[in-house]
């Protein structure tokens, strides 16, 4: 599986993501700088976590208007898998590639801990390696993870089976306990938790592994 990790000024989880992708796919991902306007031909594009542009204006708002985003939108339209984790999720929402917005955590505190997630759909390249209803562990580390969408959008997400993960014990106030959502074509996943940080026993568990393995299997 060929993959690309997009790096913005202020990204800080790209090394974890690169290490995970390399371990699981056996191929080192290409790092792509935000100011580039072309992407190499890859099977998976990942926008990692961090604080792009220092969260200025709104989390992900400036990064979402970077030159590389038009290329990501083009590739996503062609059906290439796109994963946005944490700040990556915020960027995908700000860019309009996913609906809704991530606001300040309801409790106003930055949350850095392990949470439990329930897998709500297996119908995507990212979630087909899990069982529907399976509860998995995942670290979270964010200040702006409070997912919001209007009633109409929320109804669509539910009706189209596009809620990928829900929190078991909502840490941040997200509407309907939403931790991750899929795009209409189901090839874009945005999620606040960090599956890339739980892929081998040394991390304390392997619950994040199936997400990357199923993406790998989908392109094999």
């Amino acid at each position: 599986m060929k993959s690309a990790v997009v790096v913005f000024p202020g990204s800080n989880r790209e090394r974890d993501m690169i290490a995970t992708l390399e371990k699981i796919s056996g191929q080192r991902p290409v790092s792509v700088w935000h100011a580039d306007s072309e992407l190499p031909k890859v099977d998976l594009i990942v926008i990692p976590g961090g604080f792009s542009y220092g969260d200025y204006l709104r989390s992900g708002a400036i990064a979402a208007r970077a030159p590389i985003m038009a290329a990501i939108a083009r590739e996503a339209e062609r059906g290439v898998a796109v994963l946005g984790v944490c700040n990556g999720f915020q960027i995908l929402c700000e860019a309009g590639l996913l609906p809704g917005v991530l606001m300040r955590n309801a409790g106003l505190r930055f949350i850095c801990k392990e949470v439990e997630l329930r897998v709500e759909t297996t119908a995507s390249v990212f979630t087909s390696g899990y069982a529907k209803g399976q509860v998995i562990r995942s670290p979270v580390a964010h200040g702006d993870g409070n997912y919001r969408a209007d009633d109409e959008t929320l109804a669509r997400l539910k009706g189209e089976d596009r809620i990928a993960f829900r929190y078991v014990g909502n840490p941040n106030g997200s509407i309907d306990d939403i931790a991750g959502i899929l795009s209409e074509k189901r090839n874009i996943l945005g999620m606040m938790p960090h599956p890339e940080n739980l892929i081998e026993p040394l991390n304390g568990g392997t619950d994040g592994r199936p997400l990357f393995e199923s993406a790998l299997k989908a392109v094999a």
Partner: protein
Amino acid sequence: MKARVTVTLKNGVLDPQGKAIEGALGALGFAGVGGVRQGKVFDIEIAGTDADKAKADLEAMAAKLLANTVIENYRVEIVG
């Protein structure tokens, strides 16, 4: 020309920061604060003298970047 774009949260959108500020105002002894909503103000310097064109440009700036219209409203004014 000087312009001002004011971005405010839409009604019904939770504003935990506004709530915290409201609590702090109460703690300072200001009674009767019925609610606080936090917003943003952008003072923007625009070249040219065509106020209508500037306003149209500012509307586009607000819609495309300054506000996230999922949760925020905006207001554009030419102030001088």
